[in-house]
């Protein structure tokens, strides 16, 4: 079996709010001192794929794919250090924040190219959303570009009866599904797909694994529409909200007095609901 995991490199989302700034001209966050990291849900997807390989116990090959700047090679190396088998980087030049429709088209073209050379991928795994813009549309749009069925918010893949058994989170609980290859899933996090820390030996080995680089021209996608990446939506405006409120802290000499104040405030609000 063959699995493909899509990765996105983003600005570290754990930058504290006080260090977060907007570049008004670029209509995006200023990088400042922040690191570039792999989007967490993409790493959950890598971990989910690795666990499927372990459960299947047989011949499962995992490829990581990224559409990004040359710096995104780091994300792919890290995925290979987590023991993904091979990687492909489609180098981006142009808009640093292409919308999901353009990304979907580029990823679909790259997937078809990789499939021409190495056979079809049974499953494509995409993070449910990114920690930067978080629009969460890439997986769905990519499924449509590829014409494959899809399921969202999946937390595990297991070998099933002739297919793959999927387990996913919904807003009311858990659903189990049976999927026939080829299909696409978007991956969410749970306590079982926390990304593993690569072993030192595997980090060294990752530099010996194949990393293919493709350009938009290689994929016959070197058009203004794709480079610009704003065919269906674009950022009109972005700003930092200033809705901080004044917090009234409980005061008093003793804990008893302070908690009493807090209790009265809570009681007031609860009583007003009726």
């Amino acid at each position, binding site marked *: 079996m063959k699995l493909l995991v899509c990765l996105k490199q983003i600005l570290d989302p754990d930058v504290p709010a006080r260090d977060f700034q907007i570049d008004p001209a670029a209509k995006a966050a200023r990088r400042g001192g922040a690191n570039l990291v792999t989007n967490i849900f993409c790493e959950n997807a890598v971990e989910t794929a690795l666990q499927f390989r372990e459960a299947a116990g047989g011949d499962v090959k995992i490829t990581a794919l990224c559409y990004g700047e040359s710096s995104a090679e780091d994300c792919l190396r890290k995925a290979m250090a987590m023991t993904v088998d091979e990687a492909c980087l489609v180098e981006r030049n142009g808009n640093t924040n292409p919308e999901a429709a353009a990304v979907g088209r580029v990823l679909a073209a790259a997937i078809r190219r990789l499939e021409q050379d190495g056979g079809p991928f049974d499953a494509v795994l995409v993070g449910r959303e990114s920690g930067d813009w978080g629009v969460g549309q890439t997986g769905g749009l990519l499924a449509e570009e590829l014409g494959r069925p899809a399921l969202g918010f999946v937390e595990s893949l297991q070998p099933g009866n002739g297919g793959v058994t999927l387990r996913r989170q919904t807003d009311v609980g858990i*659903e189990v599904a049976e999927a026939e290859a080829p*299909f696409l899933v978007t991956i969410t996090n749970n*306590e079982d797909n926390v990304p593993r820390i690569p072993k030192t030996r595997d980090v060294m080995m990752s530099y010996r694994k194949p990393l293919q680089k493709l350009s938009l021209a290689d994929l016959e996608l070197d058009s203004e529409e794709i480079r610009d990446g704003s065919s269906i939506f674009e950022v009109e405006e*972005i700003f930092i909200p200033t809705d901080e409120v004044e917090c009234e*802290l409980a005061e008093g000499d003793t804990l008893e007095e302070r*908690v009493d104040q807090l*209790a009265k405030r809570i*009681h007031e609000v609860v009583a007003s609901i009726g």
Partner: protein
Amino acid sequence: MANIAVCVLGSLGYDRAAQGAAGAGRALAESVGGELHALVIGPAENDAVAALAAVADRVVIGANEALRDYQPEQALQAAQQLHAAGGGDYVAVLLSNDTYSQEIAPRLAHRLGGSSMADAAAIRADGDHLLAQRTAYGGKAISIYRLKKQPAVVWLRARGFEPAPEQPSPGDITTVDVALDPPRIRITGRQVAAQEGVRLEDAQVIVSGGRGLGGPEPFEELRELADTIGAEQGASRAACDAGWVPPNWQVGQTGKKVAPELYIAIAISGASQHLLGMGDSKVVAAINTDADAPIFKHCSFGIVEDYKQVVPLLTEKLQSMAG
């Protein structure tokens, strides 16, 4: 004609989220001088259909029995055919923020040749385009997107919108039979998490716990507090990821978006991802040992103290006030 469609799942009925989506749809329809249509995927209860007809100018129902049991591929096929049956000339197709609507939205947009957008908290027309407002960078910023293609298929933070007003006369109801292929991904099992009381999204009071609780046991103590004031229990992502409480307790960017009258955050620092899930709360109270925790910049009142000292005493005091 520039009409607006609100697309709902029949099995979910006309709940608060659908009411909000219809409300957003009506406001948009008025601003572009068009009608509001409701597209219903699958059979719905009579009272839900009547409630939709009361607020929409037209209701189109894909009533195949097979659609009662949600399957993503079939729901998409139905949505696409309902879109055509409703006239197909929609400026926008709006959906709620349940799991199913979220996963359908981008794929429906692609099939209709439109724009897709997620988690919009506000939406308005601007010339031929729609502008949708949402959060970005884990809640650190607000972004406004220009949606350039029609229809704009958008799922909304639906409970944040006022319910749609009833119209002077109810809209026409049409039932259509949609063509469905057998799905290649089939949902075969559903386990609804044990739900005591109301859904977190609809709760009026929520008591949430975070990483600072250090384990699953303190949530029992919080339960006592919650029971005292008729609250539901929630948690931060850290507490859910650690397995202390079920994932469906999670409030935040990738969890529930709640809007209670009172939200009590206990041992939650207030990372922007969490604030994003509770930002619509009317009143926020915080209990935290760290006076510099971001939660104190987003609450009306609070106490800088260890929850272990505060919670038992607080529960006792509230019990005597209630009694």
